[in-house]
C-alpha cells in the first residue's frame, strides 16, 4: 500500500479535485446533461404524450427494452451494496478506496431504476397507486404481485443505500467544510450535522455503519432475487425457472463490479491522483471477484439451458431454440457467452488483472454481455409463448433505443456532477489506509 501518503496529501488531492474543475470537465458534463435531456427526457415526454405505442412493444411482447434497462441498472447498483456492506462486515481491505465510488454509483443507478419503472408504465401519472396507502376509496394493493414485491424491494434498497451513502460521508463532509468557502462551506456545514470527530462520534459512526451493513446485507441477495421473481413467478416458458434468483443476483454482481472497474479506470485515466489510491492491488482483487462471479454466472446459464433441455417440452425447446439458434439472437447469445464466460477466463492470469486497460475492455464486454443476457430473457421469452399463432418478434423503436442511450448519459452526468460536490473517495477511510501518521496533520481528520 501507499504508505507514504500523508493526510495532507489526501486532503489536497480530493479537495483539489472537487474544487478545481477544468473547462473540459464542464464541456463533457454539459454534453452529457444535454444528451440526457435530448435522448432521455425528450423522448420520454413524447412517449407520455403519445402513448406507449411509440415503442416497439406489441402483442405478446409487452416487456421490452425498458424492463431490460430496469434489470440492468438494478444490477449495476448491486456492487455498491456488496462492496460497502458485505465486504465491510468481512473486513476486506481493498474495499476502502473504492467503496464510496461504488455507493455513489448505486445511488444514481437506483434513480435510473425508478425512472425506468415509470417509463415502462402505460399511465405513469398514476404511479402512486402502487403504494399501499389508506384511502377513502378502500383500494389496496396486491401484495401477491411480484411487482408489489419490487416496489418494496427497490424502495427499501433506495432508502437504505441513500442513508448508508450519506452516513458514511458525514466525517468527510465535516472535514471538507474546513477546506472550502462559499456555498460549499454552507452545504458541508449543514450536511455534516455538527460532526466534530470526537471519540464518541467515531464510535457511534462505526457502530452505525456496522449496523447498516448488516441490515443492507440481505438486500444484496433479496433485491435482485425479487426482481427475478417478476419473471420467475409467471408461467411463461423461458421465465418460469427456479434458478432465476441466484442467476440474477450473480449477474447483477458481475455487472456491478464491471461497472466499478469502468468507473475507477476512467477516473484513473483522467485524474492521475486517483492512481495513488486505486492501485494494482484493487484491480487484482476485483479481477478475482469478477472471475469468480463469471464462473458462477456461467454455471447458472448452462443450468438454465439444461433444465429447459431436460424438460424437453415443446414450449421450452422452442423458447431455447429462439434464443440460441435463431438469427440474430444466435449471434447475440454467442456474444453474451463470449463476454461473460470465455473472456473473463483470462482474468486467471494475474498480469491481466493488474493491467487497467485490459480490465477496462473486459469489463466493457461484461457490461454488454450482461445487458444482452437480460435482453435475451425478457423480450425473447415473450416472443415464444404458448400459442404459436401469437408468436411475434420484437425490435425496439428509436424511442426505446434513445432512452436506453440517454440513460447512460444521464447516469454519467449525474455521477460527474455528484463527484464534484461530494467526495468520490472516502477521506477518512483513505486515511485509515494510509495508517497512523507520524506527524500531526494540518487538516483535521
Amino acid at each position, binding site marked *: 500500500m501507499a504508505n507514504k501518503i500523508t493526510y495532507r496529501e489526501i486532503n489536497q488531492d480530493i479537495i483539489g479535485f472537487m474544487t478545481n474543475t477544468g473547462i473540459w470537465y464542464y464541456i463533457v458534463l454539459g454534453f452529457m446533461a444535454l444528451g440526457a435531456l435530448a435522448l432521455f427526457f425528450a423522448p420520454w415526454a413524447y412517449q407520455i404524450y403519445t402513448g406507449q405505442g411509440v415503442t416497439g412493444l406489441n402483442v405478446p411482447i409487452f416487456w421490452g427494452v425498458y424492463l431490460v434497462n430496469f434489470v440492468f441498472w438494478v444490477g449495476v447498483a448491486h456492487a455498491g451494496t456488496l462492496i460497502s456492506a458485505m465486504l465491510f462486515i468481512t473486513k476486506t481491505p481493498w474495499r476502502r478506496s473504492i467503496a464510496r465510488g461504488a455507493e455513489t454509483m448505486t445511488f444514481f443507478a437506483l434513480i435510473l431504476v425508478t425512472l425506468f419503472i415509470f417509463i415502462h408504465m402505460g399511465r405513469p401519472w398514476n404511479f402512486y397507486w402502487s403504494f399501499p396507502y389508506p384511502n377513502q376509496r378502500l383500494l389496496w394493493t396486491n401484495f401477491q404481485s411480484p411487482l408489489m414485491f419490487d416496489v418494496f424491494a427497490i424502495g427499501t434498497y433506495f432508502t437504505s443505500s441513500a442513508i448508508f451513502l450519506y452516513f458514511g460521508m458525514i466525517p468527510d463532509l465535516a472535514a471538507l467544510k474546513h477546506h472550502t468557502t462559499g456555498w460549499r462551506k454552507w452545504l458541508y456545514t449543514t450536511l455534516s450535522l455538527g460532526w466534530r470527530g470526537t471519540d464518541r462520534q467515531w464510535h457511534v459512526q462505526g457502530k452505525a455503519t456496522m449496523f447498516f451493513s448488516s441490515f443492507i446485507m440481505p438486500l444484496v441477495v433479496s433485491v435482485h432475487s425479487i426482481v427475478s421473481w417478476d419473471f420467475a413467478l409467471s408461467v411463461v416458458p423461458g421465465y418460469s425457472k427456479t434458478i432465476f434468483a441466484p442467476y440474477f443476483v450473480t449477474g447483477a454482481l458481475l455487472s456491478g463490479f464491471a461497472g466499478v472497474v469502468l468507473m475507477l479506470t476512467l477516473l484513473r485515466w483522467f485524474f492521475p491522483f486517483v492512481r495513488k489510491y486505486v492501485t494494482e492491488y484493487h484491480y487484482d482483487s476485483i479481477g478475482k471477484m469478477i472471475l469468480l462471479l463469471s464462473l458462477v454466472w456461467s454455471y447458472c446459464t448452462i443450468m438454465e439451458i439444461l433444465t429447459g433441455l431436460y424438460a424437453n417440452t415443446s414450449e421450452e425447446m422452442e423458447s431455447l431454440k429462439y434464443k440460441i439458434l435463431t438469427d440474430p439472437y444466435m449471434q447475440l447469445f454467442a456474444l453474451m457467452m463470449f463476454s461473460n464466460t470465455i473472456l473473463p477466463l483470462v482474468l486467471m492470469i494475474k498480469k491481466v488483472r493488474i493491467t487497467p486497460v485490459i480490465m477496462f475492455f473486459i469489463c466493457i464486454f461484461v457490461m454488454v454481455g450482461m445487458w444482452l443476457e437480460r435482453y435475451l430473457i425478457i423480450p425473447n421469452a415473450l416472443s415464444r409463448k404458448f400459442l*404459436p399463432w401469437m408468436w*411475434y418478434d420484437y425490435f425496439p423503436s428509436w424511442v426505446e433505443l434513445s432512452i436506453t442511450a440517454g440513460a447512460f448519459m444521464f447516469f454519467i452526468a449525474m455521477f460527474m456532477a455528484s463527484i464534484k460536490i461530494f467526495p468520490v473517495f472516502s477521506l477518512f477511510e483513505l486515511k485509515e489506509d494510509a495508517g497512523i501518521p507520524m506527524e500531526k496533520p494540518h487538516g483535521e481528520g
Partner: protein
Amino acid sequence: MKRRDFLKYLGSGIVGTGVGLAFGKVTKPPGAKLIPYLIPPEDVIPGVATWYASLCTQCSAGCGILVKVMEGRAKKIEGNPLHPVNKGRLCARGNAALQALYNPDRIKGPMKRTGERGSGKYKEISWNEAVSILGRNLSELDKNGATEGLYVLTSTLRGHLNTLIREFMSSYGSPNYMQYELFQHRNLIYANRVSMGLDAIPHYDIANTRYLLSFGADFSSTWLSPVNLSHGYGEMRQGGARRRGVLVQVEPRLSLTGANADEWVPVRPGTEGVLALSIAHEIVAGGYYKGADASSWKELLSGFSPEHAARVTEVDAGRIHHIAKEFVKTRPSLAIGGDNLSAYRDGLSCLVAVNILNHLAGNIGRKGGVVPNPAGLLKGRTGTELRKDRITALAKSALEGDVKTLIVYNTNPVFTTPAGVKLERALRNVPFIASLSSFMDETTAMADLILPSHTSLEDWGDDFAEPSTGVRVATLMQPAVSPVFDTRGAGDIFISLAKALGGKVGERLNYKGFPEYLKESWRKIYANNKEVAAGALTFDGFWNRLLEHGGWWQTEEPRHKPRSVSVRRVKAHIPTSPSEFEGDEGRYPLYLVTYPHAGYLDGRGANLPWLQEMPDPMTAVVWGSWVEINPKTARKLGIKQGDLVTVESPYGGIDLPAFLYEGIRPDTVAVPIGQGHRLYGRYAEKRGVNPIEILPVAEDKRSGELALNSTRVRLERKGADGKLVKMGVRTEELGRGIVQTITPEEFERIAGKEEA
C-alpha cells in the same frame, strides 16, 4: 434573507396561486349539458335500448335482423331469432352494416357534377333541384320519343322496391330495367330450370343431411345464404342425437368450407363437371339407381367412367367410386355446387351435373336434400330474363349510343366487370348518368348527378328471400334511425321523380312516399292471401305485427314435393369436356381461381373498417389482397411468403403479395375479389388489387353469366416486400394439443354417452 427579497418571493407565490386558481377555473371543462327531448318519442327510455326488427342488405341472402338503438343511434345489429333464414344468427358482414350507416365517407347530400366526368368535382345542390334536373332529363327523352333510352341498373332487388321501379319503367315506357351483381347465382337458377324445371334456387337442407358433397360451394363464408347454411352445418355436425354428418368438398383451392370438410378432393380446375358425372356413372353402374330410366342414364353417362375421369380430373378412380358409394348409401345425402363451379365457362353444365347427382341419389324434394321453395308472395324476376340482364349487353348498348340516361342504384359495375368489357368507356358514352349511391364508388364517379340514397338502416323496404328455407318468407325493412345525412330512400326518389315527370308515370305512382307504397302493396298481399292474413283481424294489426316481428313467414315444416331430372332435359346441358381457359398452357402455366372475400364479397364491404381489419378466415390477411400459391410452385419460382408477385394473364397483370398456402393445387393460384378500389372512401381506396381487371370477357356458353374462372396466368417474382399483413405467425401446433381432436370412430364410441 432581505425583506425586499422576501416580498418578491411572497409576491411570486401569490401571483402563482392566483394564476393557478384562475387557470383551473378557465380550463375546467364546461359542465356537460343535459339536453331534453322536445317531444318524447314513444317507448324510448334513455339508457335503455330499443330494438327494431329489420332486414339485412349486406348480401342477397335476406336475413332478418334486430337493430339495437339507444338515444336514436344504432348501436348493434343482431340476428332476428324468429327469422327462419338466419335463426337469430348473423355473419360478419351483417354486423358491419352499422359502419355503412355511420361511414365518414358517405355522400352527404345530392350533388351535381361540375368538372369533367370522372374528375370527382361536384357541387352540392338541394333535393328539389336534383330531382328536377333528372326529371327534366327524362321529360326531354319522353318528348323526343326516346323513352327506351332510359336504363335503370340496380342490384338484385326482390322486394317492393323492385316492383316500384318496374312500374315506373313500364309506365314511363322503357323495358330497360336491369339487375346486376357479380354474384347473382343465375347459373344456379338456370341449371335448376333446365334440369328440374324449377325456376328458382331451392333450399339445401344441410342441417338434416348426413353426407354433404359440395362442389366448390363455400357456404361458410359467402355462398347463397351463408348464415342459414352455416347454421345447417352446425346442426349437421353436432345437432344432437343424430349421426354426425360428413362433408366432402371438391375444389381446387381449399376454401373455408373445404377447411372444415372431412375430406378435400383437390380436383383439377374446370373438370368438376366431369367428376360429378363420373360419380353419377358409378351410381348408375353400381345399380344404386332404381329409376325406370336407369338404362338411358347409363347410356348418357357411358363416357364418364372413373378411369377416364381420373385422367382428366386427377382424382383416383377408386376415390370416385368410394364417394359415389358413400353418396348413395348414406341417407339422406346432398350434393351442392356453387362459387368456383358456377364460375367456369360451362358453369351451368357443371351445376346441371350436380343436379343429376342429387336426382340419381334420390335427394330432390326430401328432408336433408334439395327442398324446392314454395312460390313467393310476390312475383319477382323470372329466369327468362337471364340472358337479357347482362352487363355486357348494357356496355354494348351504351357504346352504340342506345343508352341515353342511366340510373344506377346499389351496384358498382365499373368495379365488378373485367376491363375487357370496357364498361367505363361505354359509360362515358352515356349522355346522362344518375347515381343513387350513398358512397363515391367507381361507378358513382361517372355520374352527372348523385342522389344519395339511404342505407338499409334508415330506409323502408322488404325482401322475399331466395333461397328461402323451404317456407315462404317475407322480411320487412324499417328505419331504425333517422337519416344521418341529407339522403332519401331509393323508392322515395323514384316516387318524387314520378311526381316531377307527371303524366302517366305520375298517375301510376301517385303516392306520398315509398312507405305508403310499401304499406299499400302489403295491403294487397294481405287481402289476396289467406295464409298471410290468418290470425290478424285488421290490416293495421297485421302491419304492426309485421313491424314487430320483422316480417312474415310460414311456421310449419316445409312440404316436400319430389321433382326429378330427366335425361331428355339435361342431355344438351351436361359438360362433355373440361372447361376452357384463356391463355396458352405453355406461356401461362397456372389456373387462376378468383373467389369472393368473406368480408368484402364483390367489393362492397371494403369500405367498412371492421371488415378490413377482420382477418381473412383462411389466410388471416388484413387490409390488403394476396395471391395464394402452393409452396411447391413457389419454391420452383423462387417466391417466398410475402414477396411481391406479378400475376399476369393474357389480359393484363396485377402486383400483389404472395401467400404460400398448402391448401391449393400446385397448378393453381387464387386471388380474392373485393379489394383494389380506386375510389370508395378512405378505408377502401388504394388498398390491394382487383383481380377482375385481368379476367377475360368470358361468358358462360349457355347462360351468358360472366365466367370468373376462365383464364390461365403466370407468376413472376417482382420484389421482396409485398407488404403482406396478416394475423398469426405460425400455424403449426408443435404437438401442444391446442386444438384437440378425436377420430370419427372414437366419436361414434362415445356419442352414446354424450348428452346434448
